[in-house]
């Protein structure tokens, strides 16, 4: 008799525990959206591959120098 009751309680509390535990593992209802975090494939910086091979300074220098090709004053003067 007592054992039967205890068994019911045990089962019930086990079920309760399961339910409560289930509550612990439940997901939040509202997703916490973090704006602007890129979700796509990774990309390399432009100086990664040859001929720069990771040398950022060299790339920047080259680019600055190359930008001057758009400036005819460099070749003509004033």
């Amino acid at each position, binding site marked *: 008799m007592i054992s039967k009751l205890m068994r019911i309680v045990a089962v019930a509390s086990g079920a309760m525990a399961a339910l409560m535990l289930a509550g612990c*593992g439940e*997901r939040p209802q509202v997703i916490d959206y973090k704006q602007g975090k*890129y979700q*796509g494939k*990774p990309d*390399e910086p432009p100086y990664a*591959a040859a001929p720069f091979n990771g040398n950022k300074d060299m790339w920047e220098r080259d680019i600055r120098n190359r930008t001057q090709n758009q400036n005819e004053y460099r070749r*003509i*003067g004033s």
Partner: protein
Amino acid sequence: MLLTRKSDSAPTTGPRLKRQAGGRISTMDRRTFLKRSGLAAGAGAFASQLPYGAIGPATAAAESDAKSVQKKRTVCTHCSVGCAVDATVENGVWTRQEPVFESPLNLGAHCAKGASIREHGIVEHSHRLKTPMKLVNGKWQRLSWDQAMNEVSAKMLEIRKDSGPDAIFWVGSSKHNNEQAYLMRKFVSFWGTNNCDHQARICHSTTVAGVANTWGYGAMTNSYNDMQNTKCAMYIGSNAAEAHPVSMLHMLHAKETGAKMIVVDPRFTRTAAKADEYVRIRSGTDIPFLFGMLYHIFKNGWEDQQYINDRVYGMDKVKADVMAKWTPDKVEEVCGVPEAQVYKIAEMMAKNKPSTVVWCMGQTQHTIGNAIVRASCILQLALGNIGVSGGGANIFRGHDNVQGATDVGPNPDSLPGYYGLATGSWKYWAGVWGVDYEWIKKQYAEGMMEKSGMTVSRWIDGVMLPNDTIDQGPNLRAMVYWGHAPNSQTRGTQMAEAMKKLDLMVVIDPYPSATAAMCAMVRKDGVYLLPAATQLETSGSVTASNRSLQWREKVIEPLFESKPDHTLMVAFADKFGFKKELIKNYEIVKDKDGWDEPTPESILKEINKGTFTIGYSGQSPERLKLHMKNMSTFDVKTLRARGGPCDGDYYGLPWPCYGTPELKHPGSPNLYQTSRHVMDGGGCFRANFGVERDGVSLLAGDGSYPKGSDLTFGYPEFDHVLLKKLGWWDELTEDEKKKAEGKNWKTDLSGGIIRVTMKNHGCHPFGNAKARAVVWNFPDGIPQHREPLYSPRPDMVAKYPTHDDKKAFWRLPTQFKTVQDKNVADKVSTNFPLVLTSGRLVEFEGGGDETRSNPWLAELQQENFIEINPKDANDRGVIDGEYVWVKSPTGAQISVKAMVTDRVGPGTTFIPFHFAGWWQGKDMLEFYPEGAAPIVRGEAVNTATTYGYDSVTMMQETKTTLCQVARKA
């Protein structure tokens, strides 16, 4: 909700990645893990903006497998600025193009056409003419080359047998390189006719004639680069922003550093948008405007009197004419420009020297084109601007090699180098070509060898007019359009009739061109299309507008079944029996089909050998190639190389580059410049018109001479007699003496006279003379304004009528007065009250089929349109964007989209001339060979244009005609 990535790139959950979702994950307890594991985030979400992570081992950026990768340097083929292009070719395929920043001409810049020129190497979806074709029963059929060559040549020989060699008109091309253009002239001569021509006829023929007859050479006197040195530039009849975009780099730089810019045009063009002063002028009334300026210049004493005394003949006569005729009231009456504005422009040009004048079709394409250009020359002479850096007559030529083709190519009135057609010239060139003069003479019909041929602007009349009215034996029975479009010539409806009447039409072109469609529309057979290669598929030299020569490397092999033009000329020569004579001095290589191809280098060497007149003698292939490799050593303002392998040369050895290549003349960047030594690019005006006239000396005044010259006064051109008189004859070597005996500087094949004259004594071989403000070999000695044949102002016609008719002019009767009088009598200007003018768009070139087949260009201008002023539009109920009929006095009508804009003034309309492929409202797509119609088609404005030709060169009057615009019902 964030999506899962579905890519199969390298796993991003690898240990090398930074995961920063909310913070660095350094430790994680089980609870946190449980909480997070429920998130259906793409694993490895990147919080940072820097998604850098190693995807894989870094490999070489370029293609890693061993392909053959070459860099070829060429020049854009779409206008005369001559922008260099570096083409990357991988395994024979043109994959990339890069700007050539080192080029002193364009500094890497391109317009829409140059930036997209790589399209010429694309094979997929190409609209090229791919195989030889023949019109059979109204349909285009493929032919093999052998079949095509056999059939065409057989038909031509048959026509020749029946009617003589003059029955065929060979239109060559301003898009041929120098070697091909030159070979074309030789080829046509051996065929036995002077019926050849090219686009210069309808472009700058009036310029060449007018300018050459004023001071010596008919070319741009300075350069695009030199415009950086100007203080004031007047663009009259030039829309450089659309026709020569990269030239604006130099002009806008000049403007930035203080130069003033004036634009005179019936339309407020994109060039006008950059101007400091814009003048709206009635189409065709340039002379009143220019002489209106001169009126103020003379009145205020702004002319350069010293310069005029030393270097100009006849300015006093011009002054008398101008002061009497072109008072401000008369100027305003004719051209519509008020006195204040004319005065202002005149003052700007006079007080901001050196000042330059730029002109293009706006000045040339008139019945008085030769006079208009001379008026511009006279203005510059009065101001003392010719032969001065920053000044000059800066004539912008059109197609990429129209300058070269004019210089050495298929002109009906001259042999290469402007030698003319007299017996002496023929004998000279026969000598250069190594063929017997008598043999050439026998090729010609009796009496035709020294007679100028017909012009491309009038070929249709050569077909259609009664035989007894034309000045040659047969009518034209066959037409060869070799690198030329038909829709750039006027009177399209009559052209269609002429096409019907021909026995044979041959089109040799990279594209079928509108010729194919027009022919298929009006006839069933007798038309052949032969695929030619473009200039990217061959090497050779090309002459830019500033007279610089550049060498193009061959980028790719001819695509599809096309062949370079010079190969085809040799193949035809073979069929006609004069191959041996044609290729005598050339090096021959075999193409992939075993056909003989003369190397462009060897042809250029022959040009060098013979063309002393204009100094095409010093630009050897070796020197030119050296320039192309060392572009960065040339100064952009002076075009001179400072140091380096080309030290002292001017870029491209701009002609005249006198003497043999061994003389190492540096080229002439600015013509007639007396402040430089002749071996330094300096010069003076040419003595071409005699020594004196009416008691006045035509030679330069004392004290006017190129710097450092031994002779400090005027002198005639040099020949063996003059050399002996001066005691310089013995400075020639024995070999030179042999060749120079009895010759002048132009016919001395050794180049010795030139060498001694220039190098030893600093004199100019063509003499030192005055420029002629008054000429005596033109219809009007002093430029006179005459109304266009289709003038909107009958009252002006009464005051300024056109010329009398001519009976035999370039072999054809040519009407002037008859047409103009009839128009007035028929009240044409009442029924067709709007002036119709035409011109260019930046996206397209010439007849347009080539550029309208480039999708990147075609997308930008998809429909032909008419610019119409809001007042005129409202008078007709025309709404912007709707299609309208543009009706011509000829009865033709074309369907174009209305663009209602203030760009044109009331009474003037404008239609671009690049379109073709519609015929009076109907799409001509079905008439093109399959897959070879241009992407964009539209009405050709010239379907609706009218009769009218220049009184010296037979230039067509495209810039001023009349039309009516009506809504479509």
